[in-house]
């Protein structure tokens, strides 16, 4: 070791963490690629290798070679089927970064697993077989990656060894993929396309001499260097209150994890939904007080004023507020074997807040193979639809596109307690917002009595032309 162990540890403590998702079909070598990343970063121990060699001979699909795929197939019942059927997490680290891989299956009926594995990912790797090129499944996975708001995507064109490392073939696949993304209006902020052979190791860790025409980074090099500190929303401070700490009469702290943004001592904050204001007095942690905290730190905040605030409510900056309301539109993925029963009052959990909710309308279903919107009724397992939801208590939320933490929710079946669906908020449901009536006490707006009839006339026009209901109270 060139470094002393102390130097190594000091350096290692400072590494950041990248969470990534891998998706691909059963046959395009995804598990082999992960096995290779683990193997080449020396995360395999001798006994794991021995077990791997033993299993390769017994149930492997790689002939006499080591079947890296077996590393990733965990559960006994699944091992024999030759496919992974749930999300498995893998860990490895290099000199520059720590990685968590969520390995998810490519099978159509397991969309829900890819959604599960991808919800916390910074980056996704989608594999295609260089011989097959872009297939239906590639499109499906890309759609899910964009739906989940994952900003970095690697299109790993695998099995390049089987197409003689042809630049033409690679370029054609990349062109086809990019044109498909464009046609689907899918915007991936950071897309990298890399020619690979997972089996033989080309461009996995080291740049391969067999692809001299490729001037990009190797996969590992890219994974180690892609900047991810901009992935979390640092503009809008959102602090969902998780737990109220009252160890004694003199201390009342609000414990929680910052969903987004930065909070500083002295900041003016507003509690939602109550709208009450105060200032941050202290940012308390076990290791001492901080001057500022940022997402995703877990801290405890104390306030200058004794305002009423409990779990499920949110602290924000008054000049940068989220949306609030009972009605929202969302993209929802159905995760349950039991189809949607819209008469049910589901539990909806959003940040630290749980309320009852009805799915009032399923507007359309997305055919994830083509990206088309299809007329539909109800929702079944693995379907993705835009829905309208009405909640019993008001929610304090952002658009998922703006904030992955405050824009997401899960839907829980009130009888089985299963997580039936998950959702990503698109917007407030304007149709509902407009349908409800706003009462306006004219005197409060400084409108003199002699102008009341004109205002009333104007509101009537609004109602007829735009469907906005404003009831004027003339006092």
């Amino acid at each position: 070791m060139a470094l002393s162990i102390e130097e190594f540890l000091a350096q290692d403590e400072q590494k950041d963490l990248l969470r990534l998702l891998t998706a691909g079909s059963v046959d395009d070598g995804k598990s082999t690629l992960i096995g290779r990343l683990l193997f080449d970063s020396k995360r395999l121990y001798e006994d794991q290798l021995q077990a791997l060699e033993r299993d390769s001979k017994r149930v492997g699909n790689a002939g006499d070679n080591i079947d890296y795929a077996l590393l990733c197939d965990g559960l006994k019942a699944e091992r024999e089927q030759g496919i992974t059927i749930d999300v498995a997490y893998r860990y490895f680290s290099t000199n520059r970064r720590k990685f968590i891989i969520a390995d998810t299956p490519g099978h159509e009926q397991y969309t829900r697993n890819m959604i599960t594995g991808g919800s916390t990912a910074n980056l996704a790797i989608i594999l295609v077989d260089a011989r097959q090129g872009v297939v239906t499944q590639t499109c499906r996975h890309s759609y899910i990656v964009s739906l989940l708001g994952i900003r970095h995507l690697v299109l790993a064109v695998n099995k390049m060894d089987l197409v003689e490392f042809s630049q033409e073939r690679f370029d054609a696949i990349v062109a086809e993929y990019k044109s498909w993304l464009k046609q689907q209006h899918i915007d991936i902020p950071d897309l990298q396309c890399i020619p690979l052979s997972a089996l033989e190791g080309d461009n996995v860790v080291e740049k391969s001499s067999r692809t001299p025409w490729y001037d990009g980074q190797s996969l590992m090099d890219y994974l180690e260097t892609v900047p991810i500190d901009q992935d979390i929303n640092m503009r809008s401070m959102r602090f969902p209150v998780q737990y109220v700490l009252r160890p004694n009469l003199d201390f009342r702290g609000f414990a929680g994890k910052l969903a987004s943004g930065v909070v500083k001592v002295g900041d003016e904050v507003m509690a939602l939904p109550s709208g009450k204001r105060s200032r941050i007095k202290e940012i308390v942690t076990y290791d001492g007080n901080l001057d500022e905290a940022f997402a995703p730190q877990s801290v405890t905040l104390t306030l200058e004023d004794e305002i009423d605030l409990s779990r499920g409510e949110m602290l924000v900056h008054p000049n940068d507020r989220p949306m609030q309301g009972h009605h929202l539109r969302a993209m929802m993925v159905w995760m349950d074997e039991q189809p949607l029963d819209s008469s049910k009052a589901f539990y909806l959990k959003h940040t630290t807040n749980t309320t009852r909710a009805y799915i009032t309308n399923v507007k359309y279903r997305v055919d994830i193979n083509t990206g088309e919107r299809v007329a539909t009724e109800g929702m079944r397992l693995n379907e993705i639809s835009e829905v309208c939801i009405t909640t019993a208590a008001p929610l304090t939320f952002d658009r998922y596109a703006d904030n992955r933490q405050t824009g997401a929710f899960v839907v829980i079946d009130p009888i089985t307690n299963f997580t039936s669906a998950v959702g990503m908020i698109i917007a407030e449901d304007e149709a509902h917002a407009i349908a409800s009536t706003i009462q306006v006490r004219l005197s409060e707006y400084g409108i003199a009595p002699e102008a009341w009839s004109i205002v009333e006339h104007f509101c009537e026009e609004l109602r007829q032309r735009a469907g906005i209901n404003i009831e004027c109270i003339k006092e």
Partner: protein
Amino acid sequence: MSYSLSHLKALEAESIHIIREVAAEFRNPVMLYSIGKDSSVMVRLAEKAFAPGKVPFPLMHIDSMWKFKEMVEFRDRYAKEHNWNLIVEYNKKAYEEGVGPFTHGSKVHTDLMKTQALLMALKKHGFDAAFGGARRDEEKSRAKERIFSFRNEFQQWDPKNQRPELWDIYNTRINAGESIRVFPLSNWTELDVWQYIRMENIPIVPLYYAKERPIVEIDGNLIMADDDRMPEELRRQAKMRMVRFRTLGCYPLTGAIDSEADTIEKIVEEMMTTTKSERTTRVIDFDQEGSMEQKKREGYF
């Protein structure tokens, strides 16, 4: 200014969030404490989660009555110094019948003194959530388990029917009799745990550090002669040997490794160059293929 957390601080924040979520949403949670290094980290994270307040749930140790003596001493001292409410439970009936690894084998012993003892204790106290210090990088079947892992009324895990778990929104809803096992260290690796112990100066059982200890070689495992319940003919073969333990459990079922590593730095150095994974020193894993998954289905942690 760039805001970025190191991986250890990111893992810490995630774990604290998980621990608080349990305290907020369950009626009667408990933190299972194995006295091992992972437990020590988990306990520190719980202290962090509620500072400056006291942790609002107890610690529970399931004592198989065959733990290393130093573990039990450490447990009692730590709980006292850190003002924890510590519950110790064991399978009284099996203990009185003399169940132990030397007489009944590892399989029967582990089932009765660990798995059954745990199930009985959870039932006795009516705990609806139990924290465990398991990590996903330890073993293949754990790699697939959720952070909030549902158990039916028979305390069993169904790996085929797990609740989807997304973002950091955890489904904590259960019916009467059901419970949830919660693994706040799911995303930590062995190296993360060691680094955190070093960074935070967390006390651990001295058995992790290399020292001359009386060792008997049994079927290739280095077993420490910790008390005179080890059969006489084995004890007589004990020789002093410089060893340490990578994991801790029942002394007759936990193999030591030859090692000179007597500081955390040396342990990490050894770990980085070692060729055996952590669980190979656990004798119980070799019982049958896929045996950890089997135990987990039956309710073992």
